C-alpha cells in the first residue's frame, strides 16, 4: 500500500518520468495499432516487433553503450527493412504473405539473439541490461531516454491526428482514396514508418517482442465496445494507458519484475473481459439472448398445448399432463408455467391450468403464425403439406407483426391451413 501511494502520488520525479513515458508510448501504440488492426496488418506489426532486435544489438555493438539515439536508429532501420523485405518478396514471388512474414520474422529475431549472445560474452560492463530490451523495464527509463522516446511518441500521435481522415478513407477503401487523388502510396509509406516507430518507442519500456501486443490488443478489445472509428481510437487508448501504467507500477513495486509481460497480462485481461461482457457483441450477451429465446419457445409450446385442448372444447389441462408433454424438462416447464402465470396468460386452479383471455389471444397468435407459414410454404414454395411442420415450428416464434400482415395479404387472408385446421383469428381485429 505504501508503494502504491508513493507511486501514484508522483512525488518522486523519476516515477513521474516513467509514467509520462509509458503513457505517451501506450497512446501512440494504441492509435497506430487501431489502424493496423483495421487494415488487417496485425502480422506485419508482429514481424516488426521481432525485427527491431538485431538493430538494437547492432547499435550497441557499434556505439559501445546504451545511447538511446543509436538504439532508436538501429531499431528503426532493421524494423523498416523487414517491412520492405516482406512486401518485396510477396510482390515478386508466388509465396503467400503469411509465409513470408513468418520467415522474415524468425530470421531477424534469430539474428538478433545471435548478436546479443555474442555481445554478452564479451563481458563489457557497459552492456549489462541488454536483455531488458527483450522483456522491457520501464523503471530503467532515465531523462535522456524519455526525451527521445517521448518526442517520438508525440510525433506519432500528432501525425495520426493530422492524417486521421486520410488514413480512415485509405484503410476503408483504397481504390476510392486513390480515385479522389490521395497519394495512397506515400500515405502507406508514412503509415508503415509510423508502425515501425510505434514499436521502436516501446523497446525499452515494454520490450521488442511484446510491443506487438500493445499495438494490436487494445484495438481488438475496443472493437467489441463500439462501431465508430473515433470512439474506437479513444477506447483503445484508454485500455492501453491502463495496462501500461499498471504494468509500470508492478515492475516498480516488485523488484526484478519486467514491465512488458505485466502490461501484456493486464491487456489480455481487458481483452478477455471485453470478449465476454461487451454489451453488443460479447459472448455473455449472446448467451443470455439465446437462453431467453429458448425459454420463450418453451412458453410458446405450453400455450400451444393449452390452445390444442381449447380447440377440442376442453376447459384447460391437468398440470401433470402438461409436464408429461415435455418429458425430462420438468424444471424448465415449471419455470415457464410460473412465468406465464405472472404475465396473466394462464391460471392454475386445483391442478388444472386454463388459458386466460389474454393467454388465448397470445396462443392464437402463435398458432396463426404457424399455420400461415405452413400455408405459405405449400402455396408459394411448392412444398408437400407433410414437410412444412418443422420449419413452421421454428418460425412461429420469430415472425413479426409486419411480416404476419404481409403473409396474410399474400395469401389473401386464408381461413384454413394445408392440414385443414382453422387459422385462429382475433375477433377484435378486422
Amino acid at each position, binding site marked *: 500500500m505504501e508503494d502504491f501511494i508513493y507511486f501514484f502520488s508522483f512525488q518522486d520525479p523519476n516515477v513521474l518520468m516513467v509514467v509520462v513515458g509509458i503513457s505517451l508510448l501506450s497512446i501512440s501504440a494504441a492509435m497506430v495499432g487501431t489502424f493496423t488492426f*483495421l487494415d*488487417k496488418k496485425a502480422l506485419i506489426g508482429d514481424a516488426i516487433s521481432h525485427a527491431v532486435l538485431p538493430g538494437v544489438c547492432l547499435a550497441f555493438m557499434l556505439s559501445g553503450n546504451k545511447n538511446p539515439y543509436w538504439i532508436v536508429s538501429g531499431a528503426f532501420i532493421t524494423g523498416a527493412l523487414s517491412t520492405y523485405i516482406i512486401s518485396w518478396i510477396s510482390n515478386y514471388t508466388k509465396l503467400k504473405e503469411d509465409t513470408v512474414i513468418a520467415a522474415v520474422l524468425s530470421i531477424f529475431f534469430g539474428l538478433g539473439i545471435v548478436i546479443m549472445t555474442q555481445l554478452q560474452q564479451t563481458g563489457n560492463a557497459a552492456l549489462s541490461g541488454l536483455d531488458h530490451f527483450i522483456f522491457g523495464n520501464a523503471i530503467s527509463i532515465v531523462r535522456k531516454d524519455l526525451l527521445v522516446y517521448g518526442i517520438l511518441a508525440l510525433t506519432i500521435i500528432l501525425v495520426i491526428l*493530422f*492524417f*486521421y*481522415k*486520410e488514413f*480512415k*478513407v485509405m*484503410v*476503408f*477503401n483504397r*481504390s*476510392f482514396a*486513390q*480515385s*479522389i*487523388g*490521395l497519394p495512397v502510396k506515400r500515405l502507406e509509406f508514412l503509415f508503415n514508418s509510423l508502425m515501425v516507430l510505434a514499436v521502436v518507442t516501446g523497446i525499452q519500456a515494454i520490450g521488442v517482442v511484446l510491443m506487438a501486443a500493445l499495438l494490436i490488443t487494445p484495438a481488438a478489445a475496443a*472493437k467489441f465496445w*463500439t*462501431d*465508430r*472509428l473515433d*470512439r*474506437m481510437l479513444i477506447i483503445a487508448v484508454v485500455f492501453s494507458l491502463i495496462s501500461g501504467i499498471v504494468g509500470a507500477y508492478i515492475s516498480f513495486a516488485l523488484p526484478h519484475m519486467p514491465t512488458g509481460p505485466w502490461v501484456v497480462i493486464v491487456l489480455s485481461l481487458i481483452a478477455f473481459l471485453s470478449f465476454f461482457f461487451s454489451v453488443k457483441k460479447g459472448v455473455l450477451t449472446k448467451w443470455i439472448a439465446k437462453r431467453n429465446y429458448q425459454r420463450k419457445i418453451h412458453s410458446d409450446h405450453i400455450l400451444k398445448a393449452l390452445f390444442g385442448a381449447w380447440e377440442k372444447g376442453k376447459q384447460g389441462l391437468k398440470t401433470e399432463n402438461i409436464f408429461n408433454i415435455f418429458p425430462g424438462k420438468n424444471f424448465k416447464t415449471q419455470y415457464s408455467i410460473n412465468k406465464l402465470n405472472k404475465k396473466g396468460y394462464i391460471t392454475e386452479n386445483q391442478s388444472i391450468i386454463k388459458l386466460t383471455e389474454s393467454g388465448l389471444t397470445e396462443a392464437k397468435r402463435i398458432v396463426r403464425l404457424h399455420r400461415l407459414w405452413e400455408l405459405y410454404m405449400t402455396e408459394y414454395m411448392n412444398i408437400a403439406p407433410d414437410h412444412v411442420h418443422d420449419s413452421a415450428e421454428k418460425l412461429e416464434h420469430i415472425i413479426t407483426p409486419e411480416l404476419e400482415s404481409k403473409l396474410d395479404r399474400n395469401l389473401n387472408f386464408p381461413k384454413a391451413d394445408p392440414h385443414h385446421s382453422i387459422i385462429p383469428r382475433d375477433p377484435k381485429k378486422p
Partner: protein
Amino acid sequence: MIQQIDNPVVEVHDLMVSYGQNPVLWNIDLTLPAGALIGILGPNGAGKSTLIKSIMGLIEANSGYSRIFDQELNQVRNRVSYVPQRESVDWDFPASALDIVMMGTYHHLGIFKRPGKKEKALAMTCLEKVNMKAFANRQISELSGGQQQRVFIARALAQEADIYFMDEPFAGVDMSTEKALVSLFQEMTAKGKTVIVVHHDIYSAGKYFDWLIMLNMHLIASGPTEQVLTEELLTKTYGGKLSMLTDIGELIKKSDFNPLKS
C-alpha cells in the same frame, strides 16, 4: 460498330492493360459523348471493371492512354467520381452510413481539414436522394447489400462530379431499387452529367442506357444503344472469348516476362 465522336468527355486511345502477366484488354479505342447514361456490357472476365479502373488510374496501362474532358486525369479529378464494387471493401469497418458518404466530400476539403456542418448537410441530402436518410446513423455492416450499394452511390453524389464511373452498382440490389437508381441516373444525365455503369444484364441494358460499350477483352461495339444492340454484336460479345486472345494470354502467362509491358 464503333462510333467515334467529336469533343468527347472520355477518350480512350489504344489502351492495353494486363493483370500481372495476364493481358485483359487489347487495344481499346473509343470516345464517349457528354450527358449520356452509358452501359459497359460483356461477359465475366471481359475486362469491364478493368477498363474503368484503368481510366481512373487505379491500374497501370501497358500502353495507350485515356483522357477525360480532353485533359489528364490528375487535372480534372475533382470533376470525376468512382464507385468501386461493393465487395471490394470490408463492411465491418467501424463507421456509419453518414461517415462513408462524408468521404465523398474529402477531396474538396484537402488535407488536414475536418468535414464540418456544411459537409454533413451535403452528405444528408445525398443520402436522401438514394432514399437512405433513415439509415444515416446505422453501422454499415448492419445494412443489406442493396443499402450498402446505395451508400456508395450517395458518396459518389457527395463528390458533386461531372462524370461518374460505377462498377456494378446494381449488384445485390432489388428490382425496385434498381429502377429508382436508374431514374436517378437519368435525372443526372438530363442535367448534363455523364454516368458510366458496368452492367451485365443485356435485357435491361436496352431500356436503361443511351449508349453502350460492348467488351470481350477487345472492343466489340461502342455507340448509341439502338444501333449497337443487335443480335450479331451480342453474339460476338457473349459467344465465348476469341480463342486466339485466350491462347496468347496463356502463352504470356507461362513466359518469364510480359512482352506487352513497355
